């Protein structure tokens, strides 16, 4: 049953909070004369914090179809709303003391950041292809602006330009796929499309549409072969924005990928509890290949990078590949593994980027050479970064290991052994380039041995990000339970 617009509002509180904050920020920007003021940052923190609190305030239960079926309010959407809002919260703190952004208009930056967040909220709950497209654009367009925010810096402008061109192409292909789906089903509702595909015989257009839609979503999660934009965008953007891109839009992309494919192309088989896909195509193999290629390309190219930001960009492509492993399996346990991995990835990846921000604030660069001797110059930041990097590799006892265990376990349970072997080999490759940074920090002799002062706020934030990375490595059961609970998706 669809809820009308007015009844839907009580399930829309986090979005309303973010929208109100955006409007306040615009007014603040116009009214205030002081461009250096920290008021916009504090206001955004309050707004996003309120959104997190409001996200879980109404229990989703079995889920509700809100705004006449445009969006869903279910455990899955709430999970992603909290996840992306948490990422935004950390990024706001990161941006507030970033040297790159100092002297530029702060309020506008946060307007773009929060607009992207609003888009991610909508994307993770969209159940209508019009809404999917609209929210995808709402994520993309402010992201272009964030990438090009360092106006006057050549790399930043290049990043924005590449991002726009790739983004426009990808969403153009995707919306063409949508038009085919609309033609097949005669409805823009994803669930209706799923029913029409399950009943219909039109295999060829359905397959074409599925592939075209995969272009749009693959671009958002930066899966190979739609990843070309990401290294340049990650390198050119202001570092806090890069940290944001590597987790926020990626998580929202996974949310819409899972929700869309499982509602439109898969039907739950009551006998086994497994999802089966409707078209007569070996979907698992197709996505397994995508996953294997994504992680391999990401890791192999990361090995050659000397800029840490670029290195982390390629590593985030590789991680998208690992997460696709869980998507391949078409099982609730697989999706649970993806959600779990996103949680641990949030902390370890944002942590790694936070240290990069700290180092580049102090030294003005982010090459591996800049990290030389960090172990003695800023021991706390260096040890934190080492923990994040080992967690990203997936070494016990850190949280990344548990995340990988869940993904691997599901792959092995379903007997896709070759994918597990590829992923295992990839983890070994990733150890090499992560360890290169660790070696530079602890084993190489720096030219400059003066201590780097890490201010109190980054220090506290690093501690806050290290804690879950360590804790979830030994006590992860609550997160696993949360992920299991959040797999329940509204299908109406």
């Amino acid at each position, binding site marked *: 049953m669809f809820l009308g617009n*007015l009844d839907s509002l009580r399930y829309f509180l986090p979005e309303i909070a973010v929208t109100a904050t955006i*409007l306040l920020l615009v*007014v603040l920007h116009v009214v205030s004369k002081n461009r250096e003021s920290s008021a916009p940052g504090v206001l955004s923190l309050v707004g996003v914090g309120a959104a997190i609190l409001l996200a879980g305030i109404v229990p989703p239960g079995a889920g509700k179809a809100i705004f006449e079926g445009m969006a869903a309010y279910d455990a899955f959407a709430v999970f992603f709303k909290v996840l992306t809002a948490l990422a935004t919260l950390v990024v706001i703190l990161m941006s507030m003391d970033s040297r790159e952004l100092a002297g530029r208009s702060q309020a506008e930056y946060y307007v773009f950041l929060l607009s992207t967040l609003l888009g991610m909220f909508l994307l993770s709950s969209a159940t209508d292809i019009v809404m999917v497209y609209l929210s995808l654009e709402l994520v993309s367009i402010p992201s272009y602006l964030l990438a090009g925010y360092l106006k006057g810096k050549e790399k930043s402008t290049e990043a924005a330009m590449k991002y726009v061109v790739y983004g426009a192409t990808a969403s153009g292909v995707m919306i063409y796929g949508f038009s085919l789906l609309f*033609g097949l089903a005669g409805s823009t509702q994803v669930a209706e499309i799923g029913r029409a595909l399950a009943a219909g*015989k*039109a295999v*060829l*257009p359905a397959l074409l549409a599925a592939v075209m839609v995969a272009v749009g979503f693959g671009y958002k999660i930066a899966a190979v072969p739609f990843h070309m934009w990401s290294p340049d965008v990650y390198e050119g953007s202001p570092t806090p924005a890069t940290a944001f891109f590597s987790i926020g839009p990626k998580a929202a992309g996974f949310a819409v990928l899972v929700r869309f494919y499982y509602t439109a192309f898969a039907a739950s088989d009551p006998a086994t509890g497994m999802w089966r896909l409707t078209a007569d195509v070996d979907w698992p193999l197709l996505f397994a290949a995508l996953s294997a290629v994504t992680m391999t390309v990401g890791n192999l190219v990361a090995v050659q990078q000397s800029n840490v930001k670029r290195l982390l960009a390629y590593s985030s492509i590789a991680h998208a590949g690992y997460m696709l492993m869980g998507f391949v399996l078409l099982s609730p346990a697989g999706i649970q593994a993806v959600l779990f991995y996103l949680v641990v990835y949030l902390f370890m990846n944002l942590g790694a980027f936070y240290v990069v921000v700290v180092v580049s604030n102090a030294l003005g660069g982010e090459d591996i050479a800049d990290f030389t001797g960090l172990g003695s110059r800023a021991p706390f930041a260096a040890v934190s970064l080492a923990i994040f990097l080992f967690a990203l590799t997936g070494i016990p006892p850190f949280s990344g290991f548990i995340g990988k265990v869940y993904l691997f376990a599901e792959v092995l349970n379903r007997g896709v052994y070759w994918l597990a072997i590829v992923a295992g080999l990839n983890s070994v490759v990733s150890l090499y380039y992560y360890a290169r940074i660790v070696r530079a920090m602890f084993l190489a002799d720096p030219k400059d041995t003066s201590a780097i002062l890490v201010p109190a706020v980054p220090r506290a934030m690093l501690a806050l990000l290290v804690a879950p990375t360590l804790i979830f490595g030994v006590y992860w059961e609550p997160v696993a339970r949360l992920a299991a609970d959040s797999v329940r998706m509204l299908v109406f």
Partner: protein
Amino acid sequence: MARFLESVNFADPYFPVLILLAIALAMAVGFVLLSQALGPKRYDRIKFGVYECGVDPLTPAAVRVSVKYYLVAILFILFDLETTFLYPWAVLFRSLGLFGFIEMAVFVGILLVGLVYAWKKGALEWQ
């Protein structure tokens, strides 16, 4: 190949679209190739010149357009769309009642913030 052909459903309502695509592709590529193969080839100055309604081109076509045009165009689209929403609301004003009024006030209010922003940023000034 044979298995693939068996799997294709020729009665599919979308099959003609596929044929149309194939014909369009064949025509487009075909005519380019045909004119390459059959057309006369006289390469001289006039042949390589830019075609501009028969008149010799005066200036390069790639001129810089002031960024102000884009600002005005964007603002125009924004407020033009606002009016397209206002008209149906005005027509149905009575039946939509108070709820419609509040909803429209929120919509216009959000756009108003945008207008204030554009105004203060100097987007409406033309020097």
